């Protein structure tokens, strides 16, 4: 095959494969989507990426950029076959400039590895997806990764100062700057953030970094009524204090955690885990005082606070166990990430339970209440067609519910393949047409991660 030879010339024999056993793991991510690529390349330099993309564009071969492959929506599944471009070898931290508050890295740098280096200087790149121990910065940017601390610290988008992108035609584009402020030209970097690799390959990223808060205080409260928990959340978020963490666990999640761990939990409709952080204890405590006052005004069953690390880890246990206990409770699951305006959280939680009952599946919900981003985990069995059908119906109703509450299909996991069919629920025909036009303009041969987001 002439194409294969060309790729081997670019990256070298040992950094290309079309061996079936190596292709199979690249046919999956953490979603239920599956499709095999025809080959995989592991480039080491931007120049190699350029040559690979030029080749793909010339031969009209699909290219799917891939970081750690932790996507929950099929974003990295090569649904049209073609070449998966794994950027894991491009994992050098190019520069950490504390005086200018930025870090300049290659796309394959692992999020936690960067933060370990930054911590030596007392700094942090704040967005903290659950997969941060493996997720790559390129992947974080391509999916606009969020995380637990989104309400206070935002998502990846809020920290990207500049990008180096290889466009679908093979041209290298630098966009953005090394400065804290920049309004020079269109903000093209934003277009590529969260584009899920459909517009180009991100090869280098310049990130704004923050001083690492020195102290944190944690509290957990449980509520007998969902409405009270909901009020506690939005009243806190508008109290003048912005907690760094504001997580909610619904009763289905609490039941699962209670049944499968030794964590002592009261019978409650909801649990909220919150954290305040800062640079002095006084600051942290003063913020927590406000949060606790709001909680107390909303009829909590219990409130617990932690000041030392041991107590803190104890309070985090239930939240940290949520995914794990639910993942073990069923053969298969889908983890969604619908997001609604904060005050609509109780409506969303009630609605999710109605949907679950209607279709006869268990759906447990937890997530980032502080920014309205919840994770309904739908439990089912992928080997039972009837349950697969039910799961798909639950998802469809879930998306409709989120949109009806002025929410969005996805707060942080992305559209990928799993939500592609629902794009028009959220985006009107004018917007869809413009998105398609942008895609066509940048990628005339539709080689970059094709088949995603209903853009073909």
């Amino acid at each position: 095959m002439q194409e294969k030879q060309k790729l081997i010339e670019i990256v070298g024999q040992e950094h290309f494969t079309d061996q079936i056993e190596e292709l199979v793991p690249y046919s999956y991510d953490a979603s239920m989507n599956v499709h095999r690529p025809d080959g995989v390349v592991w480039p080491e330099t931007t120049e190699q990426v350029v040559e690979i993309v030029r080749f793909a564009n010339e031969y009209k071969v699909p290219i799917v950029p891939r970081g750690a492959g932790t996507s929950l929506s099929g974003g990295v599944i090569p649904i049209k076959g073609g070449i998966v471009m794994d950027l894991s070898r491009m994992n050098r931290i190019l520069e950490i400039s504390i005086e200018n508050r930025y870090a300049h890295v290659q796309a394959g740098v692992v999020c936690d590895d960067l933060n370990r280096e930054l911590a030596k200087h007392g700094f942090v790149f704040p967005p903290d997806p659950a997969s941060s121990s493996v997720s790559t910065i390129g992947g974080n940017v391509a999916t606009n990764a969020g995380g637990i601390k989104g309400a206070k610290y935002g998502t990846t988008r809020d920290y990207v100062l500049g990008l180096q992108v290889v466009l679908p035609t093979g041209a290298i584009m630098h966009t953005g700057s090394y400065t804290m402020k920049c309004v020079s030209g269109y903000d093209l970097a934003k277009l590529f953030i969260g584009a899920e690799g459909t517009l180009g390959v991100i090869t280098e990223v310049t990130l704004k970094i923050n001083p690492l808060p020195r102290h944190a205080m944690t509290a957990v409260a449980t509520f007998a009524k969902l409405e009270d928990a909901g009020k506690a959340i939005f009243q806190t978020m508008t109290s003048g204090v912005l907690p760094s963490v504001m997580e909610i666990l619904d009763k289905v999640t609490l039941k699962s955690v209670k049944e499968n761990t030794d964590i002592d939990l009261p019978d409650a409709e909801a649990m909220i885990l919150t954290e305040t952080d800062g640079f002095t204890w006084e600051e942290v405590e003063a913020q927590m005082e406000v949060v606790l006052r709001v909680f107390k005004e909303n009829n909590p069953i219990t409130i617990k606070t932690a000041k030392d690390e041991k107590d803190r880890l104890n309070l985090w246990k239930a939240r940290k166990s949520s995914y794990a206990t639910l993942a073990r409770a069923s053969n298969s699951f889908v983890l969604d990430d619908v997001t609604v305006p904060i005050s609509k959280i109780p409506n969303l939680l009630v609605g999710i339970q109605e949907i679950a009952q209607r279709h006869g599946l268990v759906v447990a919900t937890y997530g980032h209440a502080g920014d309205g981003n919840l994770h309904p985990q739908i439990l089912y069995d992928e080997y039972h067609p009837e349950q697969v059908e039910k799961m798909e119906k639950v998802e469809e109703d879930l998306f409709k519910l989120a949109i009806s509450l002025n929410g969005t299909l996805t707060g942080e996991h992305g559209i990928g393949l799993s939500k592609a069919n629902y794009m028009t629920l959220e985006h009107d025909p004018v917007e869809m047409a413009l998105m398609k036009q942008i895609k066509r303009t940048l990628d005339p041969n539709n080689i970059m991660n094709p088949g995603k987001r209903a853009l073909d």
Partner: protein
Amino acid sequence: MTNKIQFDEKQRKAITQCSRCGFCRAVCPIFDLTKRPITNARGKMILLKEVMEDKLPVTEGVAQALLRCTTCMNCTVNCPSGVDPQEVFKAARKDFVGVGFDNLFKKMGEVIEKYGNIYGEEERYDWGHQKGNATYVLFVGCVGTYREEESVEETIRLLDLLKVDFTMIDEVCCSGVMEDVGYTIKKELAQRNVQELQKTNAKTLITTCPYCYRVFKEHPSYKDLGMEIKHITQFLKDFDFGVKTDKKVTYHDPCDLGRHANIYDEPREIIRKIAPNFVEPRRTRENAMCCGSGGGLRGSFPEDSIEISRNRLSQIIEETGAEILLTECPSCLHNFRNAKLRKQKIEIYNITEFIAQLLQEKQKKEAA
């Protein structure tokens, strides 16, 4: 012979339970080197899922992928879905051998049967220690006996200096490793060990090798042994050694001792007595990175094995600045010593070996 693999219920459950989150990428010592998903637990679980679902044929490529694992269990302790991949892989290695994909360990099995050790060594050095009856019996294992003899000599010297009433036997390979690489334990050898050990009338069997410790503890072939089994760190933890070092000391948890046998505190209790300047590596205890020697990897993928060891050693040196690296496993010791570069000044010992040296230095000083 049919190529169809019949996965049992336990395997099927584990393969389905893997949620493919990919968190094992962060802790897999082989993936750390290769960056290729086929080398980490998720990649292998996906291969087995496709084999189980008849989407992928049973191939030599899958068999080789399954062998490329140190069974270090670091992915197990970090798996949010509660899967123990190395158990699945060890079972699958047997399944693959069962349908005709023999691997290089078949030959090792023949060697063990013929020579009584994994290396095919004809002569066994026995350090001239007493045989016969005693309260304790010491079992050294193949790696210690044939590759780290000098270290074992110091361990024996330590027990003598501590006036432990112990004996040794003409041991043969415990052969438990065969179970991990696709085959089964050599029952005749196990029986021979049991008979020899029982002849000593010892109350307690002490092993220096954490892997042998696990085999004696866990494998049914040794269930009638009739004596207490202790790893040497468990045995020595309450001893008073009367020596100390001022040097900066760190400790590497062997996977077989830590994650597999849950023995983390005893080695540290001993080290704290002799080394006030003790520092933990960043990745330690349950999260300690593997030395690269386990699961048959040193035999099947020697280049990976030594490279993993170099990585672990470099990280330990960089993160701790320690002058002495201690462990208590002949395989870890052997791999680290092979991996150490001349420019790296760190000294590497088994804990027992190091204490024996301190005691001898003290004796020399006292004599002078």
